[in-house]
């Protein structure tokens, strides 16, 4: 390796998922994971990082998300075009089933990727916002522990929200 190519060579990290699959990512992608950025800044980042809470299926998606965001932000496009592009990408990216969405939300929390965490929480919120009480109980497997009288009182208090 000559020193001149070394200068332009990009630093890469190997991320290992819970189920042992290894992903190679460039530094620009890795730093979007706040947990890794902190390691790099603290000079504690080894080239090989095990992520114990994320499966390969989810990690692949997370990396796809971070890669797209890193590329869009570093590309020469104007801020408004980049913004539009990210919005379109995010919308399509959230077009996954409920379970994947939950896994992504939990992974974004664990890996500390703020924009992905915000995106998944918002998407989950919009998924449930128009549901009825009974549907929500069913979705979250929550038992109704109000007595008939208590539930009536709570419903009365928030009567305007049921209109």
């Amino acid at each position: 390796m000559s020193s001149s190519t070394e200068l332009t060579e990009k630093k890469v990290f190997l991320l290992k998922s819970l189920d042992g699959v290894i992903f190679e990512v460039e530094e620009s992608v890795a730093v979007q994971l706040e947990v890794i950025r902190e390691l790099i800044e603290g000079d504690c980042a080894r080239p090989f990082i095990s992520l114990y809470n994320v499966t390969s299926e989810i990690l692949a998606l997370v990396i796809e998300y971070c890669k797209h965001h890193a590329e869009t932000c570093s590309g020469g496009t104007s801020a408004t075009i980049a913004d539009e592009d990210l919005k379109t990408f995010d919308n399509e990216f959230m077009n996954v089933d409920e379970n994947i969405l939950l896994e992504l939300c939990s992974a974004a929390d664990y890996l500390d990727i703020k924009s992905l965490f915000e995106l998944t929480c918002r998407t989950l919120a919009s998924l449930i916002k128009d549901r009825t009480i009974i549907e929500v109980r069913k979705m979250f497997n929550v038992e109704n522990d109000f007595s008939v009288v208590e539930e009536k009182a709570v419903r009365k208090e928030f009567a305007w929200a049921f209109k």
Partner: protein
Amino acid sequence: MRLNELPTDLLVDVLSRLPEKSLCRFTCVSKEWQSLISSPHPGFVKALRRQRLHRKSYLYIWNISLFDGNVESDVEDCSLRISIVDTTKISICNLSTQEKAILPDPDHLGHVEEGWENEYGVRNFQSNQSSQIQIRFVEID
């Protein structure tokens, strides 16, 4: 993972992004949800604060004892300015009448930044017999 496996802190994060109407409705889901949404759960207040920059309206429910028990009950749907005076005082000002009040010893003020000030449209500004006040704020753009 299923929705019923969502850890409480993540559930709080999701709930805090719901519009006011859904949130009020969901207090009827269960006692746990009711207390998560309206007690307010410290994590819930924190989650609301964290995303204050990201959205235009949100719900705040505080149960605070009223200073000498007297805030007009007809302030429903008015605009209020809420200021955090210092770490022990919240002042509220009714923008239409310019009436001011200081709310005493709110339990949850520790989660709010000192010097913070904002204006809200207020709905369901009500006090009940136990001189507790419940305020739901909708931030004005």
